[in-house]
Each structure stands twice: as structure tokens, then as C-alpha cells.
């Protein structure tokens, strides 16, 4: 059996060994509650402070107290949007994009249904770029919060959040960004932007699962999601997840250290894979915007076949990736991101996302390049749409149930 190749790092990453080591003491000898008066708590408080400082550095925050630890990206997103609404009761509208993570979209849909909040969902074009004119038109004095992701999880497309935040500021709206996929992969300097809140997650940057953070700009009116203790300066009640926080701090430190590697070597691996696949396999194309994209993500649509089959055959070869196909999600809903980009369904179903990390090597790329062509060929031989390379698809008009 050959060594497995993991190319699903936008789903989750391997927790770095150094991160695990940084966490371990806080389960045992350093078990104290940072809120306690005694010595058991004191040293743990120091560790939380250090972790906060290392996150501050990673996202370029002006102050360390702008970092609020949470349980992860979903909590941070919910916290940000609900806080902004509560803090500005005279405003009743949200602006978001069609390609956000469900943590944002489901919440917005829920608020629309239960609280009568007006939600503007800004469309994207075929490359996944935001319709800026529609965004400008939606902004008004009624906008409580704008929530637009920094980078898309499926295609890696990067949004111009700094500029979007400036526009939001003009109408006095709060600007939140879900940067779960961006933090640790691209340089971020929040103090030079008008971004008010930013969500990040530990397990996307080789940290542990169950820990994340919300950046809250100094001076922003904030309402806590949970009611309880005074932790995180009253912004997030509940005893701190100290091992998780220590781990996230270490992961942030390492991410900064590997940032250049991510931008150069990892991006190079991604580019070589992408180019190689396009050369070797007919009828496939890159989705998203290759000009402005995360360095680690490639999303390639293989026409006339379906993603789950591709993933199952790849998995048999020990290669892990993910798909925009309907059938790989529990809900059977095809990817809302690729649908928003109006990718034809015969291609969207066969879209495969390869997401790299610093753990990947040249050998991984070689292996995938070797394995993919026969997999695609095998499935195309089974497809009623496939007629041969660069041929128009077969006439096939099924009766749909």
C-alpha cells in the first residue's frame, strides 16, 4: 500500500505535533482555572495571554484584547452577526454573499424567517467574483451588518474585503468577515483595514478542533452571545478552553512561520497539479478565479461524471479530496457555491477540490497525476453523456422524476 495522500486541508488539517505538545500540560499539571485567585490559575492565565498575543500577530490586530476565543468558526460567525444586530436596533438589514459558508447563510435565513430581518444576498459571476454594483446598491443606512467571507472554501477565490469594509463604513454598517479559510494561508493585517470583526478556526491551520476566535475591533459595540461569567472581558462567557487556546496560540505561531512556504512551495505544488491534470485529462476546467485565489486550493470540474464516484475511486488509491457533488453531502444538495457561479450541472457534479497544506510534497502531486487520468476515463466510460474527448455531449434527455 502506498502512503496516503491528504488533499482535503480546507475541510480540516492535521494537528501539528508541536501544537499537541503545547496543549498537553493544560490537561494535567496546568489544570487551573485562569479566573482563580491562586497559583494554579495564574500560570494558565499567562498561557492564555501568550496565545492571544500570537493570534494578534497572525491577523495583524492592533491590540491583543481584540481577540475573543470561541469554540470555532461557526460560533464566531453567529456571535458576530447577532451582536451587530443587537447593538444597532434601529438597523434591520444584513448583506451577505451567495457563496458564504452555511454558518452565515443558515443564520441569515433563520433571521429572515423568525425576526423579519431583510437579507441581501449578493450574487457572484462565473468566476465567483462578487457583483460590486449589487453590493453598493444594497448598502444603506438600514444595513446593520455586512458579512462577506475573506476566501471561499470551495474555490479558494479571495474577496476584496478591505475595500468592501470601507464601503460598509461609509453607511455606518458593521463589517464582518468569515476568514476561516484565509487565516494562516495569506498575510492579514487587520489594523490597516476597516474590518470590524473576523472569524477564524483552529483546525483549519493545523490547530485543534473545537477552538476558534472572533476578532472584535476596539471600540465596536458588542453584545455577548452567551450570558454567564465575565470571561473574555464579558464577551464570551464560559470557562476558557485552556488546552485549546494554548494549541491555537502555537498553531498561529507556526502558521506565521510557514507563511512564506505556503505562498511559494505549496502554491507551486497546487499549480503543478492543476496544470498536469488539465494537460492529461480532456474536458476539465478550473473553477473560481485563478488570479486571486488561496495558494493551496484548486477546484477542477471534470465534465460528464459525478464527484462521488471520483472520490470513491481516489479513496481506493489512498487519495483524499472533496467534491461539489450533491451526493457527497448528507443533504443531496449540490454545492451552492458552484450553483451560484452557474456552472452547468454536468460539470458542477464532477468538481473536485484539491486543498494542500504545508504537509504535502512533490511526491503527492506525482501520485495524483498518475492516478487521476484512468479514474476519470473509467467513469466516463460509464457515462451516458460522454462521447469522447472534445466531442459535444451525447444526446441524452432523461425523464426527470
Amino acid at each position, binding site marked *: 500500500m502506498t502512503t496516503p495522500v491528504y488533499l482535503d486541508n480546507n475541510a480540516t488539517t492535521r494537528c501539528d505535533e508541536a501544537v499537541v505538545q503545547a496543549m498537553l500540560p493544560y490537561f494535567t499539571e496546568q489544570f487551573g482555572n485562569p479566573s482563580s485567585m491562586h497559583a494554579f490559575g495564574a500560570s494558565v492565565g499567562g498561557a492564555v495571554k501568550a496565545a492571544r498575543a500570537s493570534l494578534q500577530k497572525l491577523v495583524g490586530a492592533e491590540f491583543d484584547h481584540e481577540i475573543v476565543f470561541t469554540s470555532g468558526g461557526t460560533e464566531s460567525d453567529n456571535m458576530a452577526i447577532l451582536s451587530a444586530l443587537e447593538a444597532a436596533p434601529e438597523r434591520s438589514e444584513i448583506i451577505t454573499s451567495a457563496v458564504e459558508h452555511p454558518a452565515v447563510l443558515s443564520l441569515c435565513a433563520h433571521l429572515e424567517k423568525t425576526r423579519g430581518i431583510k437579507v441581501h444576498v449578493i450574487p457572484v459571476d462565473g468566476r465567483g467574483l462578487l457583483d460590486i454594483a449589487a453590493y453598493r446598491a444594497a448598502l444603506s443606512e438600514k444595513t446593520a451588518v455586512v458579512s462577506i467571507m475573506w476566501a471561499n472554501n470551495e474555490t479558494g477565490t479571495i474577496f476584496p474585503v478591505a475595500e468592501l469594509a470601507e464601503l460598509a463604513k461609509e453607511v455606518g454598517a458593521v463589517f464582518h468577515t468569515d476568514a476561516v479559510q484565509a487565516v494562516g494561508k495569506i498575510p492579514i493585517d487587520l489594523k490597516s483595514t476597516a474590518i470590524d470583526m473576523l472569524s477564524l478556526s483552529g483546525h483549519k491551520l493545523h490547530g485543534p478542533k473545537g477552538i476558534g476566535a472572533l476578532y472584535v475591533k476596539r471600540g465596536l459595540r458588542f453584545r455577548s452571545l452567551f450570558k454567564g461569567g465575565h470571561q473574555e472581558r464579558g464577551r464570551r462567557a464560559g470557562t476558557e478552553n485552556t488546552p485549546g487556546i494554548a494549541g491555537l496560540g502555537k498553531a498561529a505561531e507556526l502558521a506565521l512561520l510557514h507563511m512564506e512556504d505556503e505562498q511559494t512551495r505549496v502554491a507551486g505544488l497546487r499549480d503543478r497539479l492543476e496544470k498536469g491534470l488539465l494537460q492529461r485529462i480532456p474536458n476539465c476546467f478550473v473553477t473560481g478565479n485563478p488570479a486571486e485565489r488561496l495558494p493551496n486550493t484548486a477546484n477542477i470540474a471534470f465534465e460528464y461524471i459525478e464527484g*462521488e464516484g471520483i472520490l470513491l475511486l481516489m479513496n481506493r488509491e489512498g487519495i483524499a479530496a472533496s467534491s461539489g457533488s450533491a451526493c457527497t453531502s448528507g443533504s443531496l444538495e449540490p454545492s451552492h457555491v458552484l450553483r451560484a457561479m452557474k456552472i452547468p450541472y454536468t460539470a458542477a457534479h464532477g468538481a473536485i477540490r484539491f486543498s494542500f497544506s504545508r504537509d504535502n510534497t512533490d511526491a503527492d502531486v506525482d501520485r495524483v497525476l498518475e492516478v487521476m487520468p484512468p479514474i476519470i476515463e473509467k467513469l466516463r466510460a460509464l457515462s451516458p453523456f460522454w462521447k469522447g474527448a472534445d466531442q459535444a455531449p451525447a444526446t441524452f*434527455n432523461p425523464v426527470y*422524476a
Partner: protein
Amino acid sequence: MWDYTDKVKDYFFNPKNAGVLETANAVGEVGAISCGDALKLMMRVDPETEVIEAATFQTFGCGSAIASSSALTEIIVGKTLGEALQISNQDIADFLGGLPPEKMHCSVMGYEALQAAVANFRGETWSDDHEEGGLVCKCFGVDEGMIERAVRANKLTTPEQVTNFTKAGGGCLTCFEGIEAVLARVNEELVAEGLLSFDEAYRIGSVDPRALKQKARPKAPPAPPKLDIKPLIAFETLAPVPAPAAAAATAVLEAPAPVARLTTVQKIRLIEETLEEIRPFLKQDGGDCELVDVDGNNVIVKLAGACVGCQMASVTVNGVQEKLIAKTGLPLRVIPVK
């Protein structure tokens, strides 16, 4: 990752009968809108005997769609068209050792492709009226369309009745509010159509789900859902189906007590006691069961009420038998008599 059986995996990795059949004289092309999958079934049918001599498929779809298509071709070759039309989607799923509830529509697609191909051979046009909706009950793989049909056909007005008819909500009950929403909506429609009085219609919130008992327990892996087209027709024409009763009976047989050698009288008494325990479940579904005789290890029973003539009676009998075996520790056989 989906929990596919080894047979599903095998039929996906090494599909049989894939490709174009040049000599095909019966072709069915169908798709499932719920996931975008599509299937082309090609058959060579002997015009004289109507025996399916060969069958191949081409599928645009996931692993289970490909496996279901391939399984279908394996099942139908050698059968006459009449025999092939008796095959339900459940047969395809069973052939593969079961499918995850979310993937049952893959087998429905196979069933429909077959209907379409037969229609094509006979020069008819096949149209599909089968609509599915989102999956509501994950334990038993019951979708919105199936609940809606059951409510409509039988004028159901409580969530419990929905569970009795479709099994939906018979397990973990996290779908209760989903069932409630479909029930209330369809009841409202029935009232508007004048088929149900306003007072009878179900209103959201009028049942406390905490009071509902677990009526059935999914097998591990989850019981193959009955998306089957045929039983659905039965729902519309027959009295309540006591399937949950059978399942409930099996659900109670957690710990078979080891029983020492019994005298005949003790044995009959024990069987009678056990049947008494089961009867409330049967009665809940309008059925009943009476002990006629015990002959060695043969337990003769008489089914009554809704059980008579019910298609699911054999399931009920099996359930009763399992329960009796569990309780007595004897290799009993339940034989129903008219």
C-alpha cells in the same frame, strides 16, 4: 462517508454490464431531480417470448447510482418483461444488501428506468408521477412525499398515525417537527378541498412529543426504507398497515431470558402471556391475534381485524415469532390460520 455495503462497493468498483448495447430494442432514460443523477438502461428483448436477453447501462451519478444500475441489469436478464415489471426498487436495494436511506432514490431511479424501457419496447410513452421530497425521518428513510401521500390517502390527523402508516418518527423522533409540519400543511389542504372538517385537522403544537413511545427500532444498519412504489399503492387502498407493531415486537426482545425445561402447560401459559404483551401493539394498528393451539413447537394463531388481508401480515407473524422465541427460548414456529 457513506456506509455502503461491500456489495455496493463491489458493484461500483467492478460494474457488470456497463456500456452501450448495440442491439438494444428497449431503452429507458430517466433522471432523479433530487440529486441530478441520470441513467440510461438498454435491453435486448426477444419479441416473441418477451424474455430480456441482455441488458446494459450507462449512469451519470454517484457510487450507489452506478451500483444500483448494474445490479438492476443483473437482476433482469433472463426474466420476461412481465416478471421484470414485478421488481421494485426495494428488490434492487435488497440485492445490494441495502442502501443508506439518503441513497434509496438511486434504486428508485433503477426501477423507473426499467418501467421506461418496457414502455419504450411496447411503443408507449412513460411518464413519471412519482415525486419525492426531502428526507424527513432518517431512522427509516421516509421522505416528505411518502408522508404526504399517506396523510392524503388515509386522511391522517395525528403524528402517531403518520408513524403507524409510514414508520416516520418511530425511532429517535428528532424529525417530529418535520412530520408535524407536513401533516399540518396537508391537513390544511384537505380542509380547503372540503375533504376534512376544520375541527379534525391537525394543528402544530397540539401533541407533546415527549409522550410518544418509541414504536420501532431501526436495525443496525438502518432498516431499508420503503420508498417502494407498490406498497404506496397499498397504503391508498388498504387499512392501516401494522408494520410498526411487528417492529415494536422485535424491539422489545432485548434480553432473551434463558428458560429451563417447561411443562406443556407452562409453555402454553408463557406463550399466552407473551401474546398478551404483543396484542396492544397490534390493536393500536387495528389488528389482533388469538392463540388457537400449540402443537409441539408449532404455535397456531388466528389473525383478526386489520391484519386480515394485510400485505404486511407476514411481517407481523415474523415479529410475533421472534418475540415468542426470545421469551421462551424454544425454537417455536408461528403458523397463522384463517
